[in-house]
């Protein structure tokens, strides 16, 4: 604990000041020992997040995006997972907390919205009683006050007739309403940090748009920091300030969202962009899948985890991709854009080889921007 505070004094993290990083994750490792060996679900992840800002974490299933966020919630306390590194939330290192200390923090300072609201809500209790419980665990208030708070929040997230719906069971809500109820439950204690794990994946596009609008409004109102875990680059583009691309338990690209999505420097990010058709794009543009399948975390590939699926590894001299793990380091576009790749000049490859194939109309746009 003392060592972490000493390190923190180098970076201002007193908490409360707008603009200070609220969350600092440093060299986080989450390893699960199994009968077949150690699964390195998260392997050396670092990022910071300020109040009022949104971070998008993108990656395939098994890339470690959900596991890293569960670690912030302290959900691995008491399991056999081996955690190392630091998760400093508002001056407190979560990894050094005891379980009872974590319980006081969880739900009050950091809350989570889960992907599937039907399985995350208890079917046996009314929506209202679940929200009231979450409130009364952290605040010493009467049931009556808590109930009023629950109704207020249900109203705030756009549930019609909240004073009646508060006594409904989860199955009486539609998918979008359940997700709203989950958000209400997450926000009931005004947490400074909200983690949304695929908040809209199970929803239809029109409902997704409603939920994203709601999250954005609430974030402005409460000035909380939000982490959105998703695989939808469109959601990332419209919702987030920063983007972290994860692959095989590691961050492979990290920077401002506008930077990452317009000037990506890592072939995996290119692959993600090129494998998704766009609703406004050119239909003659081809879908270029990333070949192969995601790596096994039990036996990850040597060197760069992405090299067996990378189409550009012949552009790197020698056998570097296979033998040496590249560092997450600034590329050619300044210190705020980090990438984990050996390619010397990814920008020119992207502009000349990748972009014309996936979005011919964007080439002109970027050319204009550069002149």
């Amino acid at each position, binding site marked *: 604990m003392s060592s972490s505070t000493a390190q923190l004094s180098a970076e201002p993290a007193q908490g409360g000041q707008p603009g200070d990083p609220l969350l600092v994750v440093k060299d986080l490792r989450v390893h699960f020992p199994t009968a077949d060996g150690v699964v390195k679900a998260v392997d050396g992840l670092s990022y910071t997040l300020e109040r009022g800002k949104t971070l998008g974490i993108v990656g395939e299933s098994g890339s470690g995006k959900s596991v890293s966020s569960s670690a912030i919630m302290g959900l691995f306390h008491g399991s056999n997972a081996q955690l190392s590194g630091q998760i400093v939330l508002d001056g407190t290192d979560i990894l050094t907390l005891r379980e009872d200390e974590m319980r006081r923090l969880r739900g009050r300072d950091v809350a989570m919205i889960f992907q599937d609201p039907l399985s995350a809500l208890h079917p046996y209790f009314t929506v209202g009683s679940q929200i009231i419980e979450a409130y009364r665990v952290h605040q010493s208030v009467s049931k009556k006050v808590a109930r009023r708070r629950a109704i207020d929040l249900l109203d705030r997230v756009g549930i019609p007739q909240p004073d009646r719906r508060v006594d409904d069971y989860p199955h009486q809500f539609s998918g979008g309403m359940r997700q709203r109820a989950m958000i209400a439950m997450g926000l009931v204690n005004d947490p400074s940090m909200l983690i949304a794990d695929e908040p809209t994946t199970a929803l239809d596009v029109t409902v*997704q*748009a409603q939920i994203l609008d709601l999250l954005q409004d609430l974030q402005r109102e409460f000035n909380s920091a939000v982490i959105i875990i998703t695989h939808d680059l469109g959601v990332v583009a419209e919702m987030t300030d920063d983007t972290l691309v994860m692959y095989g338990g590691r961050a492979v690209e990290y920077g401002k969202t506008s930077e990452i999505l317009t000037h990506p420097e890592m072939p995996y990010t290119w692959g993600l962009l090129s494998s998704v058709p766009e609703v406004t794009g050119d239909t003659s543009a081809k879908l270029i899948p990333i070949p192969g399948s995601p790596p096994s975390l039990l036996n990850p590939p040597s060197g760069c985890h992405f090299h067996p699926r990378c189409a550009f590894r012949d552009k790197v001299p020698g056998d570097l991709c296979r033998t040496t793990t590249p560092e997450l380091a600034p590329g050619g576009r300044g210190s705020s854009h980090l990438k984990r790749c050996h390619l010397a000049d990814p920008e020119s490859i992207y502009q000349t080889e990748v972009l014309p194939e996936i979005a011919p109309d964007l080439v002109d746009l970027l050319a204009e921007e550069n002149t």
Partner: protein
Amino acid sequence: MSTAEHTESTGSDDAGEPTQDASKDAAKDAAEARESTFVTDAAIDPFEGRAATEAPKDAKPILTVDNLRMYFPVKSQGVIHRTVGHVQAVDGVSFQVVEGGSLGLVGESGCGKSTTGRLITRLLTPTGGTIDFDGRDIAQISQRELKPLRREIQMIFQDPYTSLNPRHTVGSIIGAPLRIHKIVPEKQVLGRVKELLEIVGLNPEHYNRFPNEFSGGQRQRIGIARALTLNPKLLVADEPVSALDVSIQAQVVNLLQGIQQEFGVAFLFIAHDLAIVRHFCPEVAVMYLGKIVEIGDRDSIYLKAHHPYTQALLSAVPDVKQAALGGRRERIRLTGDVPSPINPPSGCRFRTRCPIAQEICAKVEPPLLQIGPKHKVACHFPGEITNHPKEPVTAPLLGLDNQGNVDATGSVTDHDQLSHPGYADTWYDLGTKSFARG
């Protein structure tokens, strides 16, 4: 086995001889073409991919669905289960799929798109309407008559984890249709299975493995191989990629497109992802609460959508390009949820959430009116975004005044012109307000 079935199968065996050979050659080519995409340690061409397919212009419709309806009874609780209402899952849907073409069916969950798919594969028997497949109405035919038909229409399911029997090997899963329909002698089943595995980009030597040994994308390929076993003419793909990771989705979409090009299979592509549908299907139908609200070719729907629901759907899709511009786009916000299909709103079913709804919308259901060479829309006020007409364009056609009351002076346009499943040569021009030929 019935005699009718017997003659059916032998008949198509004779006819099937040359196509079998042709498909073998095609399969070989396909496998060679795919070698570079799927074998990771060979040289990878990063730009392997296929542009969207277009069906030939004069292609005949292979599937014509006319006024298809499916009502599921709602039973009361208690000892005696009385029918107290009906879920109108599909209510008067008409469309055509041409040979080798593909029609996309999009809409929110609960709009009836999956039910439509299940009706066409006859996993459900429709309440009403006709399904004309290859010149024959299959809507009400018996299970026995259906068996030979199953060779022609196959389905690809959404969830690759639950749609494969975990206790059967891949070889027996893919070989089952061959054995059931006695397409090839028992000795040749394995060879054909290996061939199919190769077509879908899997290692043919893996026929002895169980589904749990494969990843999600590979399982979906097994499902596709099973659907291809009988050389179907129509594939109903119900959300074939929505359970897969993004990077794997593109592989499967490219595989389906390759299959369509090699074998000329027609597709009914059901999905909620508008971008994938746009990429795969030259024609798209948008469903809302059991009805088609807009149908047309790709550009009509995605560039010149005339129905407010289609416009709202399109504006709700998050766009990656927004990153270059920053922030979120202005969107049409739809409030509330989809109404219950047990008791749908009167008139136009979208009116309760529609930003431009007027009195007439509650009284009269708008017909699916053809407004372009390949564009139909069911709205009283069809128009491009922010440019909807003030007066209901459909009122004069239906013999109504602008509030939706019956107008004694008006004449009613022939109903056939408003409800034909395909596209007519003449259509209602929104500019001149008359039926015209382009």
